[in-house]
């Protein structure tokens, strides 16, 4: 038998049938549902008189629209309220389990799935949301889908798919102190570009990936979508298994033994062939800061804003010029001289407990700088929030002048009240720096949680390693 990639194994495990032209019907094990992309899918079921195939395979939670403060007073924005109420009602009608807005287990779908053990290695996982790629960190095949497909999965537990080409990114060497998974994935996107992985399933491999925690791996897989890929994957190892063990919905006892044995085959075989191979040397990666309006527009913190005049490709140069105009930046400005007035620590990329610990370690004993008007910390789930409070992280943030909020997507996409005003400049741990993403006219710089905290306490982008040496 020939050597298989992890993707081959996951595909074969889930193939219900395939047509002559290679179109497959793929079985879906877990369907994550949130309030924004599901209402029309539920209405479709209703109009066609269909029922969910397996309601227990779905799990719903409101995250995109929920307020991050004053929840006891309900949701003030009428449109958000209608969407959240519609989700509650649809889940009740169709028997889908839901963590409602005031449940401690509520949070960003991509945080709560793994946290609850609702996402397990070897599963197929879908959600009407592009950052579903996050879950590939557990060795599951996970991707975002559209509203028609949400309905399709609800009604049939399957999806019609063609197999994607594969790409392996091997990261050799070692990450330096103060350099995180976020810096790594930003550097990867900077290197291969936002179209670098188009249509591919990317598997991450190499020593650096093996040494990352599950939180770090989720950060990397989360941003895989920003490289244009369909899904990100990381093979199962001890770190994966230790993470899953004991989670509320993980198997236990004899079933755990069987599951664990099965999961241990979830990695690419030696000699497996990929359609593309990329190698990255981690040792030269330093903390990263995006300067433009696409995640590939990224620079090392000790670097400078690039000059479009030095770009030979005229289309790229024009894109850079437009980005710099939007961002209000001059070519050749040292990254370390860009001041920030907002800081956002949150999102499905970086709102897990380890992210909050990293930010708190920098904030501890310091104060949010004068020019920073708002510094938000939005935990990824109610349980992350509770854990952080048990560790006293909330006190550290509050004493430093950060606002400590309730879980949700918040300023990652600014669908709720948390948003930038035109011209605001934000150091953000989220995943997209598109024009208007955090509010019309807002300027987003993507960074790691430690770098965001460093920007908060110094009022500009600062190499967090300098602060870590001081401490």
């Amino acid at each position, binding site marked *: 038998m020939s050597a298989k990639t992890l993707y081959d194994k996951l595909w074969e495990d889930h193939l219900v*049938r395939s047509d002559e032209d290679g179109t497959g*019907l793929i079985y879906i094990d877990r369907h994550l549902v949130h309030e924004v992309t599901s209402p*029309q899918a539920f209405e479709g079921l209703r109009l066609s008189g269909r029922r969910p195939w397996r309601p227990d395979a779905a799990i719903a939670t409101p995250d995109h629209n929920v307020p991050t403060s004053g929840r006891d007073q309900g949701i003030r924005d009428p449109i958000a309220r209608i969407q959240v109420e519609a989700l509650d009602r649809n889940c009740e009608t169709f028997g889908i389990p839901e963590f409602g807005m005031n449940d401690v287990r509520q949070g960003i779908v991509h945080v709560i799935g793994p946290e609850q053990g*609702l996402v397990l290695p070897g*599963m197929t996982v879908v959600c009407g949301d592009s950052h579903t790629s996050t879950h590939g960190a557990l060795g599951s095949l996970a991707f975002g889908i559209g509203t028609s497909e949400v309905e399709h999965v609800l009604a049939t537990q399957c999806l019609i798919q063609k197999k994607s080409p594969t790409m392996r990114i091997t990261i050799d060497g070692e990450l330096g102190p103060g350099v995180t998974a976020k810096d790594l994935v930003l550097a990867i996107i900077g290197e291969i570009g936002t179209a670098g992985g188009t249509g591919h399933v990317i598997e991450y491999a190499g020593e650096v990936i093996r040494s990352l925690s599950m939180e770090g791996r989720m950060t990397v897989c989360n941003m895989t979508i920003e490289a244009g890929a369909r899904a990100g994957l990381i093979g199962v190892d001890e770190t994966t298994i230790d993470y899953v063990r004991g989670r*509320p919905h993980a198997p236990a006892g004899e079933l755990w033994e069987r599951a664990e044995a099965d999961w241990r085959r979830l990695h690419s075989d030696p000699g497996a062939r990929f359609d593309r191979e990329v190698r990255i040397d981690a040792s030269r990666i330093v903390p990263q800061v995006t300067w433009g309006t696409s995640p590939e527009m990224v620079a090392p913190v000790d670097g400078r804003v690039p000059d479009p005049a030095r770009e030979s490709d005229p289309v790229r140069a024009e894109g850079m010029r437009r980005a710099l105009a939007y961002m209000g930046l001059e070519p050749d400005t040292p990254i370390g001289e860009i001041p920030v007035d907002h800081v956002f620590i949150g999102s499905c990329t970086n709102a897990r407990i380890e992210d909050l610990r990293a930010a708190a370690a920098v904030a501890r004993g310091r104060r949010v700088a004068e020019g920073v008007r708002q510094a938000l910390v939005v935990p990824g789930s109610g349980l992350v929030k509770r854990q952080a409070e048990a560790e006293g992280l909330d006190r550290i943030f509050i004493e430093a002048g950060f606002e400590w909020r309730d879980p949700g997507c918040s300023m990652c996409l600014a669908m709720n009240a948390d948003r930038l005003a035109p011209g605001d400049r934000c150091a953000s741990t989220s995943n997209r720096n598109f024009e208007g993403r955090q509010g019309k006219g807002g300027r987003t710089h993507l960074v790691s949680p430690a770098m965001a905290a460093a920007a908060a306490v110094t009022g500009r982008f600062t190499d967090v390693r300098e602060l870590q040496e001081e401490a």
Partner: protein
Amino acid sequence: MDKFETFTGVVAPLDRANVDTDAIIPKQFLKSIKRTGFGPNLFDEWRYLDHGEPGMDNSRRPLNPDFVLNDPRYRDASILLARDNFGCGSSREHAPWALTDYGFRVVIAPSFADIFFNNSFKNGLLPIVLPSETVDRLFRMSSGEHALEMTVDLADQRLLPAGGEPIPFDVDPFRKHCLLEGLDDIGLTLQHEQEIRAYEARRREQAPWLFGSG
């Protein structure tokens, strides 16, 4: 999805190229949680003289008398005739939802944007590509004093304009089958219900932890 049966309807000539999905259904209406109810806001910016927002009483809004759908001749149109590249722009599925909710069942144009074309079939709307000359001819026939009535026969793949020659058209055989049988993607997948059940039974043996509530 309802079966697509032969029907006779009025043709509305929308003499524009590059009709984009934001023109078909402007973005302020996407906040809705429904996939029905978009019909009154179909072509909102062209159809009304004021600016439309969700929740307005559309029956009280000033109509643009120059817009084709407000012309009494085309009041009950169910066939839309347009120019090149119909449905370009964002991938919103709300565009076919709005057209079918209004009552359109067929759109005829010399070319369509790809995603719109695919989304249409998923929602029981038949997009028909005809040569520019034929489209020209239909524009002339439908713009006279009286509206043009036309029969759409999908099974035989032809249009029968009242008082004119039959016009044959092409359609992908698989998609034709789906429309005629009223099969959406979901209906199609459900034809494999037994295979899905068999897969589940097998999988439940191999990996029971995927099926327990844990």
